[in-house]
């Protein structure tokens, strides 16, 4: 979106009607379709970019694309064609210089600066200078036509087919170039094919996110993924997931708040990256090394945790119901915090206590799994995931606080209000995702406890965690019985 100015969507509090409404606008449909295709493409190719360490090369390819797009604008064709020609030409050049050449910072940086300068010259020769420059540099996702979506789709399909053909030798030569050479793999050809694939992906991604922000979509999702898993297939899946959810959330929030989608996409990916780096280093530290404690202590913590979590869930359901009732009674009051507080004070109180109790329960779950991990290493991952969930709750609370203060400020007409809202919404979104991760961790941990204690109620409760209210309740019963009974003897042990 170029600077906003469009705010025609009548929003409601019903997410489903909102999404149906969005889908009824053609430009919105195009944006979502193109965004999804490009996010999938970027997520997959980004994995190879990270493994080959050609992140800076891909950044530079985007910049040479700027002069291409500018040249295309000057001669009056779609910028994407100029992007494709210029990035493919530069990519081929880099490939001929060799894979090692694409990590030469100084050479790449020099070419990059020249390409930006050239783009500037082309654009200044063109009259609608500022507008076009803005959309190439920062993306113009809402300006994508139906024909462009089709072009993007078929080209992406072609590129992915090529990548499927070459991925094995490509991956191998990325990891062990000398052996690949000795094995007779055509390194130059592989390099060339990959740079062309990368050039196409970058040319499309520039339409969404712009030349300057390309790094966030092409590289960071894969960088997040490789920190979470060292399996290549899972890494590609996570990378695609991160890219696609960021693009969707970015588009949705952008339309809602009327600020540029590029910012939200980049912002969400950035916060995710910081969290993964932060949590990743937590994983290495003593926090997860387990503590020396009798196993009963661990089970007791988990029992208390599931009890508190059940109460929190009850409060959450009650609060959500009260809030919905209040909003249904006065649909207009949602944007007026004063009115909202007055009409739904009980609901807000219930939700706030649900959040606090939920955080306390997560903390107890974490401590319980950590104690269990001295008895069995299989509880380290549940402890880790619970910690992630705790982070999610904190982010949700922080984001909600920012958002609400933004709304409150808007009511009293302060200029800073949109900024608070801007940062608040993606944080809530991200926090919600991470909270679900924590929930999964608790479910997995309860399942493993159920196996360890041969307690069916725990395993049933773990599965029922899809409905947290029921799941927490049933696992609470399970933990109580497990505590009374003690662990089952190991099945492979000698019988006496």
């Amino acid at each position: 979106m170029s600077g906003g100015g469009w705010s025609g969507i009548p929003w409601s509090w019903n997410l489903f009607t909102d999404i149906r409404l969005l889908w009824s606008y053609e430009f919105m449909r195009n944006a979502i379709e193109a965004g999804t295709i490009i996010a999938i493409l970027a997520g997959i190719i980004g994995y190879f970019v990270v493994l080959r360490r050609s992140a800076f090369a891909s950044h530079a390819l985007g910049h040479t694309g700027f002069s291409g797009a500018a040249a295309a604008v000057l001669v009056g064709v779609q910028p994407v064609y100029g992007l494709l020609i210029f990035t493919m030409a530069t990519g081929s050049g880099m490939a001929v210089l060799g894979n090692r050449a694409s990590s030469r910072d100084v050479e790449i940086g020099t070419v990059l600066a020249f390409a930006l300068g050239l783009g500037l010259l082309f654009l200044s020769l063109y009259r609608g200078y500022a507008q076009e420059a803005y959309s190439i540099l920062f993306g113009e996702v809402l300006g994508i036509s139906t024909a462009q979506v089709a072009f993007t789709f078929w080209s992406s399909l072609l590129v992915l087919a090529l990548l499927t053909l070459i991925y094995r030798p490509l991956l191998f030569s990325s990891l062990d170039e000398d052996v690949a050479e000795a094995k007779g793999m055509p390194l130059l050809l592989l390099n060339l094919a990959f740079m062309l694939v990368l050039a196409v992906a970058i040319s499309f991604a520039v339409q969404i996110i712009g030349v300057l922000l390309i790094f966030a979509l092409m590289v960071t999702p894969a960088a997040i993924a490789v920190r979470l898993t060292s399996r290549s297939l899972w890494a590609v899946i996570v990378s695609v997931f991160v890219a696609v959810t960021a693009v969707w959330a970015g588009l949705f929030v952008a339309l809602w708040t009327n600020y540029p989608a590029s910012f939200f996409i980049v912002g969400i990916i950035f916060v995710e990256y910081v969290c993964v780096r932060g949590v990743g280093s937590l994983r290495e530290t003593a926090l997860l090394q387990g503590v020396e404690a009798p196993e009963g202590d661990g089970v007791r913590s988990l029992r208390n945790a599931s009890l508190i979590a059940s109460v929190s869930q009850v409060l959450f359901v009650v609060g959500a119901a009260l809030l919905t009732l209040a909003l249904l009674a006065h649909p207009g009051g949602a944007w007026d915090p004063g009115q909202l507080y007055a009409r739904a004070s009980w609901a807000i109180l219930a939700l706030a206590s649900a959040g606090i109790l939920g955080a306390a329960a997560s903390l107890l779950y974490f401590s319980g799994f950590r104690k269990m991990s001295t008895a069995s290493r299989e509880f380290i991952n549940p402890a880790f995931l619970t910690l992630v969930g705790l982070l999610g709750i904190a982010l949700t609370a922080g984001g909600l606080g920012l958002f609400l203060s933004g709304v409150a400020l808007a009511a009293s007409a302060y200029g800073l209000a949109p900024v608070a809202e801007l940062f608040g919404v993606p944080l809530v979104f991200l926090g919600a995702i991470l909270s679900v991760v924590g929930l999964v961790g608790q479910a997995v941990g309860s399942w493993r406890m159920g196996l360890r204690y041969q307690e069916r109620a725990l395993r049933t409760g773990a599965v029922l965690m899809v409905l947290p209210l029921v799941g927490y309740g049933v696992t609470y019963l399970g933990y109580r019985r497990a505590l009374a009974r003690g662990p089952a003897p190991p099945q492979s042990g000698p019988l006496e």
Partner: protein
Amino acid sequence: MGGPTSISAERVEVRYRNKLVWKDATFDIRPGEFVAVIGPNGAGKTTLFRMLLGLHWPSSGALTVFGARPRRGNYRIGYVPQRHTLDKETHLECDKLVRLAYPGTRWGPGKRWRPLQWGPRFNLAAERDAAAQALEDVGAPDLGTKALGALSGGELQRIFLAEALVGNPDMLLLDEPLSNLDLRRSRELVETIHGVVRSRGVTTLLVAHDINPMIKCLNKVIYIANGKVAVGTPDDVLTSARLSELYGVPVEVLHDSRGNIVIVGGEDDRGEEGA
């Protein structure tokens, strides 16, 4: 002598960028032999490997590998280079690297081996079993699920060895696998390699700076120095007379009570090569 040879060199001379590296190398390596390639830095040890791999050609003389001219992409050779592209930031399972090196199935008319597999692989079971076997053979069955970037130097060398072994080669070329390893780790790795040499009957050439960790397992030594190449059994080559002749200056080979060797002199009279 006669009989089949794994490597046969006849008056081979090699140049690199028109500069003579070494000349007059005549030797035979027989199947299943464990050979150390020793010599100072820049003497042309890696160049020998590159010639065997078909990446560099002798300027004169005849060199054959399994009775044929060396060629690039020879599936019968497993290669572990000295340098690797990997670093601490490589978040990929070891198992994956080994499996990617699996050369694939025979295809087409006759018994041609497919050196690299394009596209997705469908006979995953064969690949998985071959990788598991290779990891087992190098004594690292439990490293498969670890990330490459998280391994220690010795563990990494085992993975590279498995990567070279997974194609079931008849010859292994190992370029300085023992560098950066302490003496104990070196001995352990040599034991592993020697076990593979015996159980798989694979001809193995190993470039090293220090001959002592492997001196008891070796069949032959290739000593490259001063533009010349000396080949023979360790007792034959590592003598004061032979090395003095090779370097053209007096060199002394000292033996300690446990069979370790120290070489004094040779490199400008100051090096302690092999110590």
